[in-house]
């Protein structure tokens, strides 16, 4: 250790120059990557936190497609029901339409949804002969089988039940006084097969749901209130930007007259959640953040009575973050924002080095002596923290690996800055600052406080007793520790906003729960047939009530083969197959033979003209070669429940595929569904996505991995400390170990569950706690070291511990661990070391 000190002393100038060069290089790199180059190097996709082998190819592409459509829309439910409300609604829509262009909005109302539904149905009607529901197919097959010419030969004019069923039903409808919704006229769809198909396919598409038949216009009815839907889509980033701010301000202005009475207006949209999250974070930043900043500033100035340490500390930390970022950019293609956030907080440990230096400087006046005295301590501090945080590199999770690299490089950079640059800066020309105020005749406020504290035996005893009580209680309740990896941890929205969102979804019948299947194939036909297999199974599951609804594009577009089969089936059963005239047989005979179709029977019953029937047949024959393709209806799908299901041809780094999504609603059990592709033998073409459980599982995996690796790393650190300090290692470890155990116990007592973010809090606690032990041990608990660790503890409590006051779950979990943890650790360290120095003093004075 002394060698390092000597080395550093000898070559400090040269090394400092080198280090400055490295910093410059890092600055250039970061500036180049972040400011000059246009490529976005930051990653926010949570999927990227998964180990590579756990990712599905294409999932990310699908993910971004689906979340984009979700995130960039706003749903408004405007209350109507009286003329006054009605006027407000029209004003609301009109104002939106007026400024539609300015904000790049697409405004649609439920009337528009109905219109596009009608357009879609109209397009589909051109392909009506190719479309049959399962029930229709079964019914027609019944007719077709018996109705085949050779069978007729045997059965003669025997009544055909299947045919009679269809015809009776058709005739009943034709003569019924009740108006039935028919999509097409009699000559285009005599048996209303297409009308039935439309009802079957669109029954649960939301257009008809909750619609109040009594109100004017398209209206949703809910708990005695009537609402009309307005749907906005916008472009651009939901999460930031001036445009979003303007949009929100504009919307707020629009909303205000509607809010005045009762329910008035309900809204849903990610943009509101993002804004609420940001507002909350800003609010907390200005209260908690400002408070703690002020406290830390005061602390610095009261202790050192100069701005220089503050500026230099800030500089050192900035250098740390900068170098860490530069290295991450060098080694990783994209840097995840999670890495930045938590990596930066782990670098916080390095503020200890600065405090240690300044306190020693205050004590020894000379920067040179100060740095030489503390180098061993901050060396060991660095090694232990680097070991602990660096161990995360061993995990397969990219998020943790990036975090490991970031914190290790950051710590090292701060350390180098403290060891190499600070002594030079402070010795050259900056000495005139009143930094050397540590003499006995000019006692600063904080050290005086410590001296006072150290002499109060009563206070000391009380603290010992209370600490031991907490510890005992903690150990007793250890088994009650709970873990929680719920996704709601990540939610920052206020409850009222979430409730409103749920209400909107309930009213509009959109009960999507973030679960879906992705189907992919090399061409459209294979895609459709794979999806069809999946949907047939899903239909069975829906009847068993394993889910309430599903939407798939193959419900509207059958495969070419199916379309052909359906056409032939209708030809056989309904319209009558006509033998082509170029065949050798006599046409008239075969036409007659085939003419036992449902259409001719219906024509007989209704005594229709032959020409009418002939017309209907001709329309049917003319449609023989029409084939419905996915692209035919792509435009008409907008605003319908089938929108955004077919994603077209997608590409990622390795794959190109046609991709579609089967959206699920009201899923009861994810287990059954996730195994479905395997059971159907289409696991190569389809997989199940459950975002909720996915993110929860991800959080859990990260938490488990972190606990495991951190335990391993700290065992190594303990080993290292034992080698260096022998029996004294106990003194170093005791405070932080006891502190951590007490916090665990406290969490168990107060039944606060642990999650990934509390584990991160523990990591910080262990880093700072170990530093406390090491610094005190290395300096034999001298006044300047005690001052340094106290300052570091207090700043940590202010900076992170106060996050426990936050409303944001993630920040709260982090803070609730750090706050009591640091306090207890510091208290224990102070008690242990001052007790020892008392006994040292006693033995020293004794003889």
């Amino acid at each position, binding site marked *: 250790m002394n060698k390092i000190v000597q080395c550093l002393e000898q070559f400090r100038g040269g090394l400092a120059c080198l280090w400055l060069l490295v910093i410059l290089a890092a600055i250039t790199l970061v500036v180049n990557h972040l400011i000059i180059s246009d490529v976005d190097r930051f990653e926010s996709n949570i999927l990227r936190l998964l180990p590579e082998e756990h990712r599905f190819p294409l999932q990310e592409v699908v993910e971004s497609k689906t979340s984009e459509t979700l995130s960039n829309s706003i749903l408004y439910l405007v209350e109507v029901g009286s003329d006054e409300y009605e006027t407000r609604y029209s004003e609301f829509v009109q104002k939106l339409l007026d400024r539609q262009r300015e904000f790049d909005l697409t405004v649609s109302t439920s009337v528009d949804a109905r219109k596009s539904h009608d357009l879609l149905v109209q397009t589909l009607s051109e392909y009506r002969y190719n479309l049959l529901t399962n029930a229709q197919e079964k019914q027609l097959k019944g007719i077709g089988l018996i109705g085949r010419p050779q069978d007729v030969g045997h059965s003669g004019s025997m009544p055909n039940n299947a045919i009679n069923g269809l015809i009776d039903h058709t005739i009943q409808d034709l*003569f019924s006084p009740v108006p039935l919704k*028919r999509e097409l006229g009699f000559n285009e769809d005599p048996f209303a097969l297409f009308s039935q198909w439309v009802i079957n396919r669109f029954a649960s598409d939301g257009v008809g749901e909750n619609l*109040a038949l009594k109100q004017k216009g398209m209206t949703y009815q809910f708990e005695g209130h009537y609402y009309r839907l307005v749907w906005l889509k916008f472009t651009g980033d939901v999460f930031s930007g001036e445009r979003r701010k303007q949009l929100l301000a504009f919307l707020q202005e629009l909303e205000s007259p509607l809010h005045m009475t009762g329910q008035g207006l309900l809204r849903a949209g990610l943009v509101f959640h993002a804004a609420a999250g940001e507002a909350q974070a800003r609010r907390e930043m200005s209260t908690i953040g400002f408070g703690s900043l002020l406290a830390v500033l005061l602390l610095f100035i009261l202790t050192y009575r100069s701005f220089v340490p503050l500026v230099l500390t800030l500089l050192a930390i900035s250098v740390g973050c900068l170098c860490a970022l530069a290295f991450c950019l060098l080694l990783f293609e994209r840097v995840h924002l999670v890495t930045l956030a938590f990596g930066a907080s782990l670098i916080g440990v390095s503020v200890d080095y600065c405090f240690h230096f300044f306190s020693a400087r205050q004590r020894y006046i000379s920067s040179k002596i100060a740095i030489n005295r503390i180098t061993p301590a901050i060396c060991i501090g660095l090694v232990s923290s680097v070991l602990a945080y660096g161990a995360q590199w061993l995990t397969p999770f990219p998020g943790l690996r990036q975090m490991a690299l970031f914190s290790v490089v950051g710590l090292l950079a701060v350390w180098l800055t403290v060891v190499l640059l600070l002594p030079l800066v402070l010795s050259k020309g900056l000495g005139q600052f009143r930094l050397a105020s540590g003499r006995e005749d000019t006692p600063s406020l904080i050290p005086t406080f410590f001296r006072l504290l150290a002499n109060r035996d009563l206070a000391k005893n009380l603290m010992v007793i209370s600490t031991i009580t907490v510890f005992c209680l903690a150990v007793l309740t250890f088994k009650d520790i709970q873990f929680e990896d719920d996704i709601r941890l990540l939610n920052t929205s206020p409850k009222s906003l979430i409730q409103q969102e749920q209400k909107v979804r309930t009213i509009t019948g959109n*009960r999507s729960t973030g679960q879906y299947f992705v189907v992919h194939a090399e061409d459209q036909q294979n895609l459709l047939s794979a999806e069809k297999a999946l949907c047939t199974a899903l239909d069975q599951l829906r009847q068993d009530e394993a889910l309430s609804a599903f939407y798939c594009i193959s419900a509207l577009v059958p495969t070419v083969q199916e379309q052909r089969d359906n056409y032939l089936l209708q030809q056989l059963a309904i319209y009558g197959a006509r033998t082509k005239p170029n065949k050798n047989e006599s046409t008239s005979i075969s036409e007659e033979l085939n003419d036992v179709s449902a259409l001719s029977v219906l024509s007989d019953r209704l005594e229709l003209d032959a020409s009418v029937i002939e017309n209907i047949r001709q329309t049917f024959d003319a449609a023989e070669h029409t084939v419905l393709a996915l692209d035919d209806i792509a435009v008409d799908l907008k605003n319908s429940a089938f929108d955004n299901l077919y994603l077209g041809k997608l590409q990622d780094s390795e794959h190109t595929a046609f991709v579609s999504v089967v959206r699920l609603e009201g899923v009861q059990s994810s287990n059954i569904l996730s195994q479905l592709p395997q059971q159907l033998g289409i696991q190569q073409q389809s997989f199940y996505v459950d975002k909720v459980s996915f993110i929860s599982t991800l959080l859990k995996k990260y938490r488990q991995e972190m606990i495991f690796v951190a335990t391993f790393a700290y065992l190594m650190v303990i080993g290292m400390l034992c080698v260096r300090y022998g029996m004294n290692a106990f003194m170093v470890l005791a405070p932080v170990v006891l502190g951590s155990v007490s916090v665990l116990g406290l969490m168990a007592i107060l039944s606060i569950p642990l999650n990934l973010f509390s584990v991160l809090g523990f990591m910080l606690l262990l880093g700072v706690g170990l530093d406390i032990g090491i610094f005190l041990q290395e300096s034999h608990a001298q006044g300047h070291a005690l001052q340094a660790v106290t300052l570091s503890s207090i700043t940590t409590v202010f900076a992170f511990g106060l996050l426990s006051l936050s409303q944001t779950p993630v920040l709260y979990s982090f803070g609730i661990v750090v706050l009591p943890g640091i306090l207890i650790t510091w208290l224990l360290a102070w008690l242990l070391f001052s007790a020892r120095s008392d006994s040292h003093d006693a033995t020293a004075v004794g003889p």
Partner: protein
Amino acid sequence: MRFSLVFTGVLKCLILVAGVVWVSTLYADDAEPDQSGHTFSGASSNDASIQSTLSQSAASTSSATTTNIQTFLKKNEALQGRFEQTKSLSGMPFPLKSSGVFRIANANYLLWDIKTPIQSRMEINVEMGTFLVDGKKMDAAAEQNAATNVIGEIIVALFTSDWETLQQYFVLQSEANTAPENTAPTETGTWHMVLTPKSEALLQVIQRVDIAGERFIEKVKLLDQQSDVTQIEFFDVQPIRTDGQHPAAVEKP
């Protein structure tokens, strides 16, 4: 200071993560969607907003009609009679004519018995929400169509001239004074009403209804969205006593 760095970092991260979480978290409490809230039509006439609409539409209707027309049947009374129906369907070269007998009880029951040219018997029971054709329920596809029950209710209300029910669904306009044939002094009791649906949803099925009658209903003309026209004429309409029995069970006189 380090925490301001961290704070902005965490803040950005949270907001980004919120995007992913948005949909999924919401559903978490969604397990108990309020089921009582959804009613498709319902006769929740004590509802304030309906009441207000009712009174408004009542005001816009000529007040003479509502006072002149007293078609509400007394308790324990049903109507029965003959009908002739002509239905012109788009794409059908000639209108479909049918005739038969009917029986109807105020606002909740209709028996429609077609005798010629086919035999078919339709029963609508609004109270029980059943819709039977030749003893069989309407097929599944039609039942999914949420409108079916409401249409049943409307048809029964039309044939019994149940203005209170009709006003919930339609804007009513009297044409009694404008129609020249109704100006004769002997026909002061006749009326002619035009009904247009209030809601877009109902417009999908019915575009306009004309009904006319004297003491009881005599003519109904129904235009649907495909501009199909259904015309029904009623003959020999007379009330019968049911004495608390179900109208279907009463013997024909």
